[in-house]
């Protein structure tokens, strides 16, 4: 398989016969075994033209500056799952904070200094007998202010349709095989709320600091498609 990265020897082997005649050659593949892709030089779509027109009008009329737009894009790109991980680690180490998080996750996140804007956040807790999974069947609702941009798979029709119908099969494909006596609770973000899974604290972490704990909290563990790392 040309994309079998663990043994990538088709890229790095030191004998010098032509790749095109080597065992990994496929029609339509580059010499290094990757598919050729078209340059994206097709015409703008209707909505791309609309976005440019509205943006330029807003700038022309002095309602907003190009620098403000660039800054906002940078701020959006800078958000990452480390923000959510810090919230989770705080909840693991501070029972009073955890209670506040489960009561009002927006207020608890702001308390930690995260600017989450108007986000209405609900935290759902994984316990010994409950596992939570987040999906947005209607579009791609995701707690971006706390976790950054959603992964591409979160927005696919496959994930959105299957997560509500066969969540256990989906979780197995993510490497999570839940026992039958664990209750799976799927949360469909259909309206104004966004969801954060509060994963269970892994065993063997009693001596770790809050910062060390945060490093164990993966993005997927806060969506519910994974568990935190083990120390």
């Amino acid at each position, binding site marked *: 398989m040309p994309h079998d990265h663990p043994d990538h020897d088709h890229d790095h082997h030191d004998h010098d016969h032509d790749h095109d005649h080597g065992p990994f050659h496929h029609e339509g593949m580059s010499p290094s075994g990757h598919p050729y892709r078209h340059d994206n030089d097709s015409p703008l779509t209707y909505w791309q033209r609309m976005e440019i027109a509205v943006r330029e009008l807003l700038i022309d009329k002095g309602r907003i500056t190009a620098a403000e737009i660039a800054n906002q894009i940078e701020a959006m790109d800078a958000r990452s799952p480390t923000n959510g991980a810090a919230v989770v680690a705080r909840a693991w180490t501070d029972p009073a904070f955890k209670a506040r998080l489960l009561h009002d996750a927006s207020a608890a996140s702001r308390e930690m200094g995260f600017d989450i804007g108007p986000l209405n956040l609900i935290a759902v807790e994984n316990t010994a007998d409950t596992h939570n999974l987040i999906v947005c069947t209607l579009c791609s609702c995701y707690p971006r202010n706390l976790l950054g941009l959603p992964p591409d798979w979160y927005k696919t029709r496959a994930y959105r349709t299957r997560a509500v119908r066969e969540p256990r099969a989906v979780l197995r494909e993510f490497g999570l095989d839940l026992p039958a006596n664990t209750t799976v609770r799927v949360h469909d*973000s259909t*309206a104004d*709320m966004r969801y954060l899974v509060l994963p269970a604290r892994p065993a063997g972490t009693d001596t770790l600091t809050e910062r060390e704990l945060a490093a164990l909290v993966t993005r997927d563990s806060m969506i519910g498609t994974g568990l935190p790392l083990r120390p």
Partner: protein
Amino acid sequence: MAERVRVKALTPPGHVRAPWYLRGREGVVERSLGNFHNPEQLAYGLPAETKPLYRVRFTMAELWGPAAENPTDTLDAELYGHWLEKARTHAA
């Protein structure tokens, strides 16, 4: 407090936020979320009245019947009050 509700089995035109797979299904109100502007008007740039929003919990058995992967697993979704009606008590 665990009020049993049914999602109205309506098919109105336009932008709605009640997913098709929940229409006509019964669940219990998990919590009330307060009032939010109605997205069915917001989507068209119209002045939007506020509507009460609820989280409703369904069992997988209720949603998928015998095809349910695990009947007692649950699905929670947010639904606006005008999409909910009191559940009819199971007559069968």
